[in-house]
């Protein structure tokens, strides 16, 4: 190295707000100051006040709801008399809908277990952390994997007659194809937004759509013997 000094000293501080910082940066690294000191506010009162207002508004909404609508209460529990249909709480009706197609060990144990595992490991995969657009690299290879996975999965759903899960899968896959067919350099608006989405976004969105669709069907569109009904005819 021609420069006798091995480091430079940088001052980056607002001494009135925060203590002075002196950074010694050696020539061997390539430092970047990505953010200057941000505007900060005191947690008390600013953040607590906002939280209190939010919780207050929610409490009022819940009190009004409670004054207007009564919680359901049916007759005394009777093990001799099974209502038809017997439904789980609404947040489990997506699973109960799957129970209609798959054996209990799949719908009741395997699928929820996999969902919980998948949720836990999300932040531990670098592909999720870097969050690079799915189709921005290795497009041909990824397209082959995508095609094989989607076809096998759709075939699997079709074999078990799970049309209610197959349709959302096809819709999400269609949006993924739309993203793949978008040129990142010239895209604008919605399609630019799509093309930047990483794999984790697509999987989570698929999960969200399935969760919503299956729960809604189980809650509103299932009647006696788990047959189709229209909610306004019930």
């Amino acid at each position: 190295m021609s420069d006798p000094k091995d480091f430079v000293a940088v001052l980056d501080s607002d001494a009135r707000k925060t203590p002075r910082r002196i950074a010694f940066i050696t020539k061997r690294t390539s430092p970047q100051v990505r953010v200057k000191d941000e505007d900060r506010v005191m947690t008390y009162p600013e953040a607590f006040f906002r939280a209190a207002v939010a919780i207050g508004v929610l409490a009022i909404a819940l009190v009004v709801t409670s004054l207007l609508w009564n919680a359901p209460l049916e007759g005394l529990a009777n093990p001799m008399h099974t209502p038809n249909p017997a439904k789980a709480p609404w947040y489990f009706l997506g699973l109960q809908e799957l129970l209609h197609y798959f054996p209990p060990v799949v719908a009741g144990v395997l699928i929820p277990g996999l969902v919980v595992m998948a949720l836990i490991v999300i932040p531990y995969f670098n592909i999720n952390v870097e969050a690079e657009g799915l189709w921005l690299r290795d497009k041909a290879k990824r397209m082959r994997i995508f095609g094989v996975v989607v076809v096998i999965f759709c075939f699997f759903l079709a074999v078990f007659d799970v049309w209610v899960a197959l349709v959302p899968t096809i819709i999400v896959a269609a949006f993924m194809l739309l993203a793949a067919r978008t040129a990142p350099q010239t895209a604008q608006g919605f399609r630019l937004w799509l093309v930047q989405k990483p794999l984790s976004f697509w999987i989570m969105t698929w999960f969200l759509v399935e969760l919503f669709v299956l729960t809604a069907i189980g809650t509103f569109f299932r009647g006696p013997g788990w047959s189709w009904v229209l909610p306004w005819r019930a």
Partner: protein
Amino acid sequence: MANALNHLVEQVRENRVWRSIFRSGTGESNLHRALFVQQNVFLHLFSVKARKRTLEFSATWYLGALTFGTFLILVITGILLMLYYHPSVPQAYADMKDLQFVVSSGVFLRNLHRWSAHAMVFLVFAHMFKVFYRGAYRPPREFNWVIGVVLLLVTLLLSYTGYLLPWDQLAYWAVTVGSNIASAVPVMGSKIRFLMLGGTAVNANALLRFYVLHCVILPFAAVLFIAVHFWRIRKDGGIYAGEPATEVKSE
């Protein structure tokens, strides 16, 4: 009037007894505001300062705070409901009828607990998806995400155990459907179901178990994990503020 009130408040805060409890003292300086948070065992889960961007509505939609709000409402209404409830068959159902016809505001109390419970389940899911789509789960916040998943499960279990307590047809059969799923676990399914229900069918033992889980074990777990969840926000560098928006300077 307002002046006199302020004067009174100041006098209380300067009082020896008050000062022995709240040491941050009087005053409006940022130091006092910082001490207010830092010297309180509960509030010091939070950092003293927050980035302004993270407090905007668009950053979080306040979904975490709202979830915690429903939890507070549920604790308060839940304790009040416990005063009128016996976890026994068929008295549990008779207590529902008493809430309806005998207890002052009993119906309102039960309604508020029920609707808040539904709201909490919904808000927990909404909070999770919001955190995911912002990318706030990424390091260094990955472990707080895991604690969040645990809290999601605790919330679902709280709601599910509470579902049985009214001991009406809705409760009984919803829990029967759920517990049958537990028996589908390979090898030890029926054992798990037996442990869960305290018997081979949903009966008085199951009601008592669900009551203890609902009123003691799960709320305790929830409080514990909520505390860690909040504390980790501070330890992981505050609420996620999004991608750095300011200019990039490179040397």
